[in-house]
């Protein structure tokens, strides 16, 4: 019990009494003494007596009578008070005994854990029944070994740890600050590049499937759905803040549609293929490459779609290449090449053709996109079961049409240049000429934007008007028109001018023909007729009995407009001479050429009969043959690749060849025919 501290609060107050005046009870008095005097320690008999004496002196005067009364009253109550005090004392003793027994029980129970036998002897039966022994125990605890020095040391250690952790915290904050600073720099760099991409006109948006990621739309909104959906790439950040283009599952391999020209002797031209962008190239260059790649991929797909519909025009799609005839001895070859493993070809002669075709194909795909936009923004047709057709874009079709048109123009020039040279050499006055004019479609296309009007004027309604002025009384007008639909079909509309020309009856224009050969033949025939017509006089009636020879004999037209007739002698009895004009292609010494032949011969008694003799006679065939007097021919010949017209012919009985320069004029030849 020695370990109980001094201040342990144990109250040894007396048990409160419930009998008599509570103010005179012993517990009350003890409490009063403790309150008034601070306990019994400061109160002894002597001090109490002195206090009473002092108090008695003060109350001597007025207290005498009271004391007497008290003494009288105290005497009979003394015994009673003693008894009462005894009872109180006994109660207090009982109270103390009870507490002592409680204390004994407590101590016994406490000791019962270590010394149960000894404790059981002192523990009360009530407690023994109520609680089992050993339920309360006490152990001696070792006194703390922590000294002040240790405490001081611990304080130092704690302070050290605190300083160490503070330093760590500061370092961590500094590291975070520097990391954040670096992150800010990286983010700033990233966003600057994103902003630059946006400011350069690229559409930047959030990815539909990754809302937190920015993407750039590099494709074309009017492309077909497949390519439109692939035209969005993520702009992801590299650790250093630079951007890289993430095209997802779509191939990022740069590709390009290459155009090559192949002739009979091999490849003779190729379009320029751009080089692949380096991996460390600026982001915009990579976006542009992605755009070009998706554009060329779409171009390649559309070319393949269209090629399947143009097989009848010689377009073939085979082994990842498309071939399309360009001319009789040249072919266009198209293929899709990867830029990564492409090595440029050396310059060749037809590179410019390939380059032009490549450019045209790209322009035509852009034009097709523009057409898609127009269709999309028009009021749509009502919803119905009727499916709108989705024909392939016109990419090769315009090329074929243009090639056909150019071919037609070449054919026209190939005919008319030698024709005019020959006619000029015949000294016709005025010399025949031809002009080509292209009707302007500007008024029709004025409502379209300039770019579309330009494209449309190059590919659609390819028209040319040819005016061949033969004589003042005869002009041949040829209008050619090459249409895109149906494909590459060239129409030739032939008319004659002026409206009152004699040719309208003699050599009626066929109107619209669909093949150049027919137009070619008509032009030669009409020219022959026009030449014949220029020497024809209106038919005259020779008076009966008058000799034709003595009259003014003239060349008259016959039912065949390129043949003239001259009657010698009386009508119906004499011989008539026929003068024939013919223009034809011919081949001599493996060279093609054009020939104008004027031939004359007698038609004895049978009018308007022209045997094939002189007309079909070639210059070589004429040699060594006898010519009847009064018959003959003369021809003007221009061979391909030559600029000089050659004139040759023979006339009269045993006539000799006349060949070379100077070339006779047509008028001279007709005069010879008249004289013979």
């Amino acid at each position, binding site marked *: 019990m020695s370990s109980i501290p001094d201040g342990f609060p144990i109250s040894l107050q007396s048990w409160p009494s419930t009998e008599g005046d509570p103010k005179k009870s012993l517990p009350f008095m003890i409490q009063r003494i403790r309150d008034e005097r601070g306990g019994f320690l400061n109160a002894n008999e002597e001090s109490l007596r002195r206090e009473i004496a002092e108090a008695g002196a003060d109350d001597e005067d007025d207290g005498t009578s009271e004391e007497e009364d008290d003494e009288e009253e105290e005497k009979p109550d003394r015994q009673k008070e003693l008894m009462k005090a005894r009872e109180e004392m006994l109660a207090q003793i009982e109270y103390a005994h009870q507490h002592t027994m409680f204390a004994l029980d407590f101590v016994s129970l406490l000791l019962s854990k270590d010394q149960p036998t000894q404790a059981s002897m002192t523990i009360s039966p009530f407690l023994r029944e109520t609680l089992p022994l050993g339920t309360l125990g006490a152990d001696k605890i070792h006194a703390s070994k922590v000294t002040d020095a240790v405490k001081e040391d611990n304080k130092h250690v704690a302070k050290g740890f605190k300083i160490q952790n503070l330093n760590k915290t500061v370092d961590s904050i500094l590291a975070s600050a520097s990391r954040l600073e670096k992150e800010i720099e990286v983010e700033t760099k990233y966003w600057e590049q994103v902003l630059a991409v946006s400011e350069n006109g690229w559409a930047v948006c959030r990815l539909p499937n990754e809302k937190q990621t920015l993407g750039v739309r590099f494709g074309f909104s009017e492309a077909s759905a497949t390519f439109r959906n692939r035209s969005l790439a993520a702009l992801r950040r590299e650790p250093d803040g630079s951007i890289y283009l993430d095209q997802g599952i779509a191939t990022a391999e740069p590709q390009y549609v290459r155009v090559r020209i192949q002739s009979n002797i091999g490849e003779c031209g190729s379009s320029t293929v751009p080089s692949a962008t380096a991996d460390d190239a600026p982001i915009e260059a990579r976006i542009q490459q992605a755009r070009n790649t998706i554009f060329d991929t779409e171009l390649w797909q559309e070319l393949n779609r269209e090629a399947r519909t143009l097989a009848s025009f010689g377009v073939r799609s085979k082994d990842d290449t498309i071939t399309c005839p360009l001319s009789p001895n040249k072919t266009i070859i198209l293929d899709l090449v990867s830029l990564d493993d492409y090595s440029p070809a050396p310059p060749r002669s037809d590179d410019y053709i390939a380059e032009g075709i490549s450019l045209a194909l790209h322009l035509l795909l852009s034009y097709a996109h523009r057409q898609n936009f127009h269709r999309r923004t028009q009021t749509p047709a009502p919803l*119905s079961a009727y499916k709108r057709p989705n024909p392939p874009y016109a990419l090769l079709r315009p090329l074929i049409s243009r090639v056909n048109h150019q071919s037609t123009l070449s054919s026209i020039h190939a005919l008319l240049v030698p024709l005019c040279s020959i006619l000029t050499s015949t000294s016709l006055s005025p010399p025949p000429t031809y002009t080509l004019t292209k009707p302007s479609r500007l008024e029709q296309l004025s409502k379209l934007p300039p770019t579309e009007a330009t494209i449309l004027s190059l590919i659609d309604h390819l028209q040319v008007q040819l005016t061949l002025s033969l004589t003042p009384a005869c002009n041949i007008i040829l209008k050619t028109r090459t249409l895109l639909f149906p494909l590459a079909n060239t129409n030739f509309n032939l008319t004659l001018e002026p409206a009152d020309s004699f040719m309208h009856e003699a050599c009626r224009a066929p109107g619209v023909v669909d093949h150049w050969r027919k137009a070619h033949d008509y032009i030669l025939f009409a020219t022959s007729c026009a030449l014949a017509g220029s020497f024809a006089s209106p038919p005259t009636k020779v008076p009966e009995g008058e000799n034709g020879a003595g009259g003014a004999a003239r060349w008259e037209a016959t039912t065949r407009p390129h043949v003239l007739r001259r009657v010698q002698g009386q009508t119906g009895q004499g011989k008539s001479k026929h003068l024939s004009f013919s223009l034809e292609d011919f081949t001599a010494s493996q060279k093609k050429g054009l020939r104008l032949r004027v031939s004359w011969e007698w038609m004895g008694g049978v009018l308007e009969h022209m045997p094939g003799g002189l007309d079909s006679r070639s210059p070589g065939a004429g040699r060594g043959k006898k010519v009847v007097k009064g018959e003959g021919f003369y021809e003007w010949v221009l061979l391909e690749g030559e600029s000089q017209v050659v004139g040759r012919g023979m006339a009269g009985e045993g006539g000799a060849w006349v060949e070379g320069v100077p070339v006779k004029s047509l008028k001279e030849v007709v005069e010879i025919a008249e004289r013979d």
Partner: protein
Amino acid sequence: MHELFLTAHISDDDRPGALRILQGYCAMSPVPILRRRLYWKGPLTRNRGIDSAFIMAQGQKVPLWRTLNEQLTRQAYIVTLLYDITRDQFPKPDAPDEEKPIMDCDAIHGTLQWTDLPDPAGARPVNSRLSVTIEGEKGLCNLLESSSYRFHGEIVEEGYRFVHGNVVIYLTRYLDIPAKFQEMEYEGKPKVNRSMPPYESLQPFDSENKWIITASSQVLSANDLEYMKKGTDELMEVKTDFEGFFDFQSRDRHIFDTRVKT
């Protein structure tokens, strides 16, 4: 032809924003609309429809005219003639009469438009009505006059057109021609103006100058339930897309009633 449509309206202040939103939504620049709308009232009695000889002379459009005639003989309707105009065809405010551009409606191509009373509201969440539109016709005023139709009045429609898939979205408002500019044959009987009043004198038909947004989809035949559903779905998709911007609604069908009241 059956027309499915939903309408919303916005104030004039919201028009620029609405144009930008629609421009982005439809990925196209707005197509401006400016046209005269001439209303012709059908006869309540002796309604003999359109001359059958005229109908038979219309070539490929005979089925359209025949359908229209069937409807017009069944009931007296208000028929609308549409004529596109340009701002140049409106005279200046102080222009003398001789300088005002003359516009003879019978000499230019116009569009005849007839729409029926929309179908009763059912399970379909959009308005739907039968309609006939015949475009590119001359002499329509003469035709209606000869069919006993009476010119009722004219307003000018101004707006923009957008296309989103199969849905055409119109943002329009109507401008009324002041009474003093309306030419009259005699008191109480207006006639078609030969020249337009100054544009500045036109008054918004709606007192609050609201603009109407109409999302419309056309279906060739109402019997084709598959395409009716498709048209309805596309309109509802538009409605959903614009939730919070434009309040597209299916309105009370009597707002669009074109029948002549007895």
